[in-house]
């Protein structure tokens, strides 16, 4: 969708045309879900997240000032939401008594993360990345966005992001298998 088209819709929504927000949802729900899914590695959490992001975006639409793209603004909300979810998960590891546990004392919330959806070795690497680092990997590697664009939505300088990305890649390399072989999902890695 063209930038001007999005801005026209947003103007109409701000003026009270709620139905137009359905078009915005149609356009953005899948990319934001994909981002949340990669951030959280859990389908239901990602679905909850995309709902929350789109709901909050509508609630705070008056605060959106067109100084950055609407897409970047949504990703920012999504990033903050996912970072909070990941923080809560971390807390659940540190303070397990505050969170749900099964009869064996294991924290099933934490165990349901990633492992269901990311096979080795991605899971191993992903668990070692912070929310910011996951976002950077997702936007740079999967979505192949330019540093300038990522800088806009992460509110950082492009040069700083470039350096950070190099560090994250090195971190990933440490946990990547060093020789060829068969991944645990049965596919031959190349």
């Amino acid at each position, binding site marked *: 969708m063209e930038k001007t088209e999005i801005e026209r819709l947003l103007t109409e929504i701000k003026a009270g045309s709620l139905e137009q927000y359905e078009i915005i949802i149609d356009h953005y729900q899948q990319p934001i879900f994909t981002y949340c899914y990669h951030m959280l590695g859990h389908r239901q959490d990602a679905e909850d997240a995309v709902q929350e992001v789109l709901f909050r975006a509508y609630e705070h639409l008056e605060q959106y000032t067109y100084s950055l793209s609407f897409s970047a603004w949504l990703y920012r909300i999504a990033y903050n939401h996912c970072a909070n979810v990941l923080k809560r998960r971390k807390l659940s590891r540190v303070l397990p008594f505050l969170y749900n546990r099964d009869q064996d004392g294991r924290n099933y919330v934490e165990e349901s993360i990633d492992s269901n959806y990311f096979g080795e070795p*991605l899971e191993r690497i992903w668990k070692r990345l912070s929310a910011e680092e996951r976002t950077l990997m997702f936007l740079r590697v999967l979505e192949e966005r330019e540093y300038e664009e990522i800088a806009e939505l992460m509110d950082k300088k492009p040069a700083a992001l470039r350096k950070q990305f190099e560090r994250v890649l090195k971190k990933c390399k440490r946990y990547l298998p060093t*020789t060829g072989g068969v991944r645990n999902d049965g596919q031959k890695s190349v």
Partner: protein
Amino acid sequence: MDKNPFKSMRDMLVAKPVPKVDVKHKVMAAIRAKENKEEKVVKKKIGLLVTVGMLIGASSVWAGVEMIQLKNEKGEVVFELSQHKLQEQQQMFQQLSQQLSPEDQAKMEERRKKREYIGTVRTEIMNGLKPGTSAAIYWKPTKEQGEDQKNIIYTKKKHPDIMVVSKPIVYKSWKDMEPIVGKVFTLPSEIHGGFRFLEGEVNYEENYEYDVDVEELKAKAVKDNKEYAFTEIPLSNKFSYTNVAYQSEKGKVWVEVRIAEEGGSGTSADVIEKVMIGNNEAALMTHTFEGENSYWLIWIKNGTDLEYSVQADEKVASKDEVIKIAKQINEIK
């Protein structure tokens, strides 16, 4: 594994399939619910006198009641829908019941059973009637009711011991039904989503005008050694409401048209929200039971005294589809 971490990471991330998602309805419902909530009257004093009849002196409580007001094109309030969630009702009822003595609690239980029994008998009599006929049922008053009635002056129109029931005529097509109700309103033979007219019933006001011989029915009840007796009476000719079932392979959607009564209605819906059906304000209720939603949309058609409603389970028609059906019906002259 490739030693280039960028490529390795990209390969792994790309290989990860991402499910499709559609949260539009949920997000829009949440937004609409929030917006309506801000409009609603939050506190309203409600009386529970009828519900808990026996609780003299404890007949009202303060409770948070959400309400939607529907206005016509002139801005006049034509319908009010107040939300009393089932759980809240149960809690209130429980609190009030706890204030009762064991004797009063026993009386309440006795009354509940009596109401159930009356309901069963009433249904049996109604089912036994021919379509398009009515019956007047006499119920022998309890001692308590008898005492109360001594102080009541009533008109012939509605004897306190008489209950009228009717069996509606069922029509299998709009073509058959149109000559009966066509002057009052029009319904389509098929509604949005491919739902076709399956059957529709026409109900008339219960005929309390008819002069029933109560003494004769009393004597009959005594003779038959029953708490009740009934006799057939003429059906009233005052239209009350029509209920039409439309069906597709997905299931049924119900459309009702009735003569609007002043005031409004209460609902135990989980969510109530205001939506627009053309220029008409409408109240949309969402009931959730065992994870399944069902919708019930009500509006008073501008310029008429007719109350329309559309009901469907979400698995049969989504919220948007229910709204589309309502718009289609509302647009018919």
